[in-house]
């Protein structure tokens, strides 16, 4: 019988590693309030753009004539692109990212992604989250393997949190993690009797000794009580940050809240869908533009809200694959290959587009149609795991890959 036990996932979940006796320390930390624990904790916020965002209209290679030739109706006109370096530019609805670029806190890795050639959303998301492209039987996600690879001295109940309804593949595995769609759902929900009933369950689980249900039960209520005290509904973002009033915006806001509360959050995850733009994708305006506005303003708000704390936080964005270079007959794009990733944080050597640009001439395209891949996403993940989170066992995080600092792009120095 293993000590490690269950709870976690579902709309709410919490897993734990034999922490029952160390639990008071958790409450003690909470009692200390917002002061971060000694030895600053590094945090990664990973954001998955599900549905395959059209990276070529996000970080636009406006210096490529082929870009305009292949996308007669959906290309972003040169005059409207937010130029970054004279060759690449941001989609005009992402102006919130420009100050971060200018202050060199935003790095882009273009032509990156999975080397597997699948164009199935299902398979590609699976591969990106397990970080074992081509191998379907990997049972855990790479962020979970990272958590396992490094001992957590604080044994935080909130070391890994996914602001999603169910536990995403990337955090599935043996290390504890919590998934919840909203902080305020993390409670006994029985209307007026909630408090009374919670007290009842707490008392019952406090006396339980038989198996790991005991420790798990106690930890659950510690976490519930903590969140109650934090009173998520009353949270006020700092520095004038304004999050989009969308589920994505709320997720980011609540992640910021957990970071500020100093509960030991190390890995946070959330996702945002709607990127599968086969039809009427739009150009400077339209479907994709609206979504990018929400996406970039949400991340910029998080950045603003966290302020100086961004010294210890990195935001990473990813999407399962890119989209066809050529627009289709519906003013949209179909499933492609390589894509663009963003990395943001005060510790990032930003203001640069990393990765080798493969070009968009027909003989430069992957399988004659897609942006070719020059950076394996595991090199991006690996650099963050090593240089930001401090993993010393990168090989176990990316099995069968041969991760090596020599392959890192250097956006973290």
């Amino acid at each position, binding site marked *: 019988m293993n000590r490690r036990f269950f709870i976690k996932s*579902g709309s709410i*979940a919490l897993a734990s590693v034999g922490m029952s006796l160390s639990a008071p320390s958790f409450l003690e930390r909470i009692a200390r309030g917002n002061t971060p624990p000694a030895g600053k904790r590094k945090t990664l916020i990973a954001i998955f753009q599900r549905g395959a965002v059209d990276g070529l209209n996000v970080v636009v290679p406006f210096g490529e004539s082929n870009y305009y030739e292949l996308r007669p109706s959906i290309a972003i006109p040169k005059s409207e692109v937010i130029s970054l370096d004279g060759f690449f530019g941001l989609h005009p609805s992402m102006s919130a990212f420009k100050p971060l670029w200018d202050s060199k806190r935003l790095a882009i890795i273009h032509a990156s992604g999975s080397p597997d050639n699948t164009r199935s959303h299902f398979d590609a998301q699976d591969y990106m989250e397990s970080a074992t492209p081509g191998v379907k039987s990997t049972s855990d996600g790479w962020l979970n393997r990272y958590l396992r690879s490094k001992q957590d001295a604080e044994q935080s109940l909130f070391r890994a949190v996914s602001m999603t309804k169910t536990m995403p593949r990337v955090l599935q595995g043996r290390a504890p993690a919590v998934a919840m769609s909203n902080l305020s759902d*993390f409670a006994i929900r029985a209307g007026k009797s909630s408090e009374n009933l919670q007290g009842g369950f707490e008392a019952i689980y406090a006396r339980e000794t038989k198996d790991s249900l005991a420790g798990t039960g106690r930890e659950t209520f510690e976490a519930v009580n903590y969140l109650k005290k934090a009173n998520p509904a009353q949270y006020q973002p700092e520095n004038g940050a304004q999050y989009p009033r969308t589920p994505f915006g709320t997720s980011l806001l609540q992640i910021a809240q957990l970071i500020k509360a100093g509960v030991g959050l190390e890995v946070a995850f959330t996702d945002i869908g709607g990127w599968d733009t086969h039809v009427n994708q739009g150009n400077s305006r339209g479907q994709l533009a609206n979504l990018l506005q929400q996406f970039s303003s949400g991340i910029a708000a998080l950045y603003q809200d966290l302020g100086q704390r961004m010294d210890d936080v990195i935001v990473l964005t990813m999407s399962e694959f890119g989209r066809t270079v050529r627009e289709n007959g519906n003013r949209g794009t179909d499933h492609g290959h390589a894509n663009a990733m963003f990395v943001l944080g005060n510790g990032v050597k930003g203001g640069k587009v990393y990765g080798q640009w493969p070009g968009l001439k027909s003989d430069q395209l992957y399988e004659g149609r897609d942006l070719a891949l020059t950076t394996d996403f595991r090199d991006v993940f690996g650099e963050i795991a090593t240089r930001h989170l401090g993993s010393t066992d990168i090989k176990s995080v990316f099995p069968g890959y041969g991760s090596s600092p020599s392959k890192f792009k250097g956006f973290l120095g």
Partner: protein
Amino acid sequence: MRKIVALMLLAVLTQPIVFAQKQRSLTQEQRIIHVLNRLGFGARPGDVERVKAMGVEKYIEQQLHPEQITDLAAETKLRELSTLNMTTAELYEKYPQPGQLLRQLQARGMVPEEMSDQAKNNQNTPPANPLDNEKNRKVIEEYYRENGLQRPQRIIAELQASRILRAVYSERQLQEVMVDFWTNHFNIFANKGADRWLLPAYDRDTIRPNALGKFSTLLQATAQSPAMLFYLDNFQSVSPNANQGRRGGLLQQLRPQQQQQQQQRQRRGINENYARELMELHTLGVDGGYTQKDVQEVARCFTGWTIFQPRGGGAAVNAMMGEAGRRNAGTFFFQARVHDDGEKMVLGHKIPAGGGIKGGLTVLDILAHHPSTAKFIATKLVRHFVSDTPPQSLVDRVAATFMKSDGDIRETLKAIFFSKEFNSTEAYRVKIKRPFELVVSAIRTLGAETNGGPGTHRWIERMGEPLYGFQTPNGYSDAAESWVNTGGLLERMNFGLALANNRVQGTTVNLAKTSGEQAKVMDEYLKTLLAGDISATTREALLKQLEPSDPATKVVGLILGTPEFQRQ
């Protein structure tokens, strides 16, 4: 200091449950409860007495022969779920994917040009949403209404409902437990492409009829099931040496053009996915003694095992092919033209050249009768029915029975149910219920009524284990220790409260009116819900929570959330 204590605790908790040499056996009453919990989804009111009257051994025998048990109550409950009895072809016709429907309308010249374009270009992604456009949405909605069509989401909702309804109401409890077990063992994810349409047939024709039969028959049924062929990509697996240029055969000529284009775009060649999972997860187990070379050779054997019109085909094609085309969409067929018919070596057995479909069948036979398979299946069954830490002695005996009986599932189960390990106090109420088991057992034990609908399934999902919702082929784990990803203790408590207070949509509880002092009322419910199997400390803690004015719903809600009710 804290650390030391924690380490000590860890040492205690990591001790495996020890099955003592001389095990204490269960009382008759306990054995009945145990059998109802493990061979089924818990006792309904009156079940214990019924089994007692008939004799527990006779009950087990009866459960092993579900075909001899009449099951009118469950069948009545299922009557409303019309998709359960439809063929895959009918499902494609009546529950079309909107994008595909657009294509079909286009083929009949019933769609304006603009939309036709859209349909044409959408083929790379069947689940893409062509309804983002307001105008399209209206036309499609109209068409659904006029033609009595339904959205495909409905298919899985009904399938999930059928599983809940059967688990709650069926007298064939062991059959339902084994359907759950094999569905998990041969896991398929509903949201992978066409699997949504293929799963009803998988449950009805592949798993259900074979759940208590011969393992080899079950294995072959899954190997030839369109749902598995699609899920593990084998339907696309073709010999790289096959003559791709000659697109002969009636079938190819009649395939709609877009489907041909799509096929061309897909990776041509051998796909090893099924071959690997077949050995790793379905039969031998990961350490079962196969090599990468075996995977490659097995994959060669299964080239050409594919699906006729995997995504339902087009209406135009169906019309051209007449009734046969219409009937057979989404069914298994062996496409000899793309099969690698050379000689292969699998686990030391020579598979002769020129065997066609026989090669794959031989592989399945070798695997089904392999000692590693016996060991692997025995371990999983013992873990499911007895303990998360399967006693080796029992696993060995069960594996031997599996071998001896030519993989007879019924005989194998018997070896478990009549073993001393199964019938020992060490096995009694030590398994943590999985979310499906928890929800169903709570409904049963309260004698509640349910329609099995999404309102009930949602709770199973919240606890982390939606039916047909596990992405990867290994399925939900049966050992609670690896449930870091499942469960949701808080959601379990919330579910109990919701159920007791009639807040689970589609499920109704009628708590018997009670009166008298709290302790007596509580003990009555503890008897109903847990046969009184509750620790003194939990009982005391429970009692402390109750005020004289508290309604029965609170008592029941709390009991459903106790650690004791989480176990079976």
